[in-house]
């Protein structure tokens, strides 16, 4: 079986909409057969997921997020965030940004934020006299920011596929996420001042009340902080947060009952399975690429033809922005990271910095047609045409592109947090 025949068969599967793990698996196994490797090698490489400790974090974070969003914790944390922020100029928009980031980070899924926050926040924003177009654009865009915030599954998967330290990636993501959130916030505040939108009064009683109600849920964010502070590894933090979420939802808030657990665990396992099964076949594919010397040849080709890291990063950004239009971030990580990351390292680019640039590109990919998943979700949630939603995110796309340029060409913005580690 030649590589051409393997490419034709797997392309057919891809075009017909077959699951990506089968497309990669079919290509990988047919190539291995063609090159004379036993298929047992593929099975062995697939099981190498049992040697990657960081992968355990994925089922735990997914389980914690499922419990917290189906229970009371997520809502109580959001109430506290709102009470702290929504009295500021543009406060309701700022609270919506913070809630979207929080929800997207918690669930690891950007569209979840639009569903959870958007349905409530959009009517509230419009009632407060924010233009509907702005409100939809803001809520559609803000959810994409969560993929840089712990416990983002996207960051964990990038770290595993690129063999980059996941804690370093989370630390490096801190400044870029603050820059992008600040840009969105400044735009929202400027608009609210221009439109003379009334502010909510600050109520210390409301803050204290929401703090009292949400204190147990808020303690879970302390476990996340433990990752930044080096108290826990990502895996340990994920297990602690899953156990903690289970305990407070069952024993304190009691919205989740024992009888609900099988359904919630099944839901977690489905998300876990769909992510980890791609990782396992992608690992066998990467093994095949490595023994064939493909990453080495690709990075050699790039370093021969691209003269500087600046030109390389510009080309990578153009490539990833185009790829983000037709491919979701998980697929892109599995397919391109093993090829692009060695080339980036050969050009002298820090792999952590490259990871942040890569992920910011795909934050934009969530918002670009034809397959920007946030556009579809918003179109369904807000009952507006895809074209209307795509038009509403344009100002935020501009801000994200500006942030991408900053993050790409000022590596210190990402890397200064790693000083001293």
């Amino acid at each position, binding site marked *: 079986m030649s590589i051409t025949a393997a490419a034709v068969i797997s392309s057919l*599967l*891809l*075009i*017909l*909409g*077959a*699951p*990506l*793990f*089968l497309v990669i*698996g*079919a290509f990988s*196994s047919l190539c291995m057969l063609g090159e004379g490797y036993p*298929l*047992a090698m*593929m*099975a062995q490489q*697939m*099981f190498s*997921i*049992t*040697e990657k*400790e960081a992968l*355990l974090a994925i*089922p*735990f974070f997914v*389980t914690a997020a499922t419990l917290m969003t189906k229970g009371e914790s997520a809502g109580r944390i959001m109430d506290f965030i709102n009470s702290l922020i929504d009295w500021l100029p543009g406060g309701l928009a700022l609270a919506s940004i913070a809630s979207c980031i929080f929800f997207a980070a918690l669930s690891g*899924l950007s*569209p*979840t934020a*639009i569903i959870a926050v958007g349905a409530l926040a959009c009517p509230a924003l419009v009632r407060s006299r924010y233009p509907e177009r702005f409100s939809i654009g803001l809520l559609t865009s803000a959810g994409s920011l969560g993929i840089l915030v712990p416990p983002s599954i996207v960051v964990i998967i990038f770290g595993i596929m690129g063999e980059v330290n996941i804690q370093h990636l989370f630390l490096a993501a801190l400044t870029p996420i603050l820059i992008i959130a600040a840009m969105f916030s400044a735009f929202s505040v400027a608009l609210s001042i221009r439109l003379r939108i009334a502010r909510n009064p600050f109520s210390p009683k409301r803050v204290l009340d929401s703090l009292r109600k949400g204190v147990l849920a808020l303690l879970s964010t302390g476990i996340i902080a433990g990752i930044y502070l080096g108290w826990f590894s990502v*895996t340990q933090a994920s*297990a*602690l947060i*899953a*156990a903690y979420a*289970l305990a407070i939802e069952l024993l304190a808030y009691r919205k989740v009952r024992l009888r609900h*657990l099988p359904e919630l*665990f*099944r*839901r*977690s*396992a*489905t*998300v*876990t*399975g*769909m992510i*980890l*099964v791609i990782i*396992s076949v992608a690992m066998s594919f990467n093994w095949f690429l490595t023994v064939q010397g493909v990453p080495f040849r690709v990075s050699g080709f790039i370093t021969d033809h691209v003269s500087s890291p600046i030109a390389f990063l510009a080309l990578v950004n153009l490539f990833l922005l185009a790829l983000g239009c037709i*491919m*979701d*971030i*998980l*697929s892109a990580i599995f397919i391109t990271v093993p090829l692009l990351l060695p080339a980036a390292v050969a050009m002298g680019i820090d792999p952590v910095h490259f990871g942040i640039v890569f992920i910011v590109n795909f934050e934009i990919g969530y918002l670009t047609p*034809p*397959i920007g*998943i946030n556009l579809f*979700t918003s179109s369904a949630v807000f009952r507006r045409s895809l074209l209307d939603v795509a038009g509403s995110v344009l100002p935020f796309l501009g801000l994200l592109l500006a942030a991408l340029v900053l993050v790409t060409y000022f590596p210190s913005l990402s890397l200064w947090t790693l000083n001293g580690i």
Partner: protein
Amino acid sequence: MPQPLKRIAAAADAALHAVESAIVVAGISLMTALIFAETALGFLKVYLPWAHELAMYAMAVVTLAGADIAVRTGGHVRIEIFTRPLRGKAKRAVSILASILCAAACAGGLKMGFDFVRSMRTFGERSPALNLPLWTVYAALPVAAAFMTVRFLINACVESKAEAAGETPGLTDETGESRS
């Protein structure tokens, strides 16, 4: 589709769903308990290498069972740029063709997994901490491939509710919740 075939598909679906559900509920509970205990005891300088190993194996089994459930719910990540514009009979025809090809690919995975387990059994390799025969863990691969083969055949025979409603598989799961 003939009624008896539909009934067989429904019975197979129910049986697989019961087995998968039991596996993932037990697996996630076990993993959480093991790693929580390992982390908590780690602060007291008590280390449980067997717990970590068992949790990793449980993760592999949960992954395969979860991937199987995702076939049922149409939740797997896929590139939809070519199939999204299709409607009606054309969409259903493409879906049937894709399901049959996927079933064939999974049948290939079943053969690969079976050969692999047989060779591991011959070598007699054991896990470092638990001293488990490794083929017992790796057996999850051919079993999951067999489950998925059946699932894709069921998908080819029975149009899912999401498909019938004109929704894109992968965008919504059985609970109606979106995923990226």
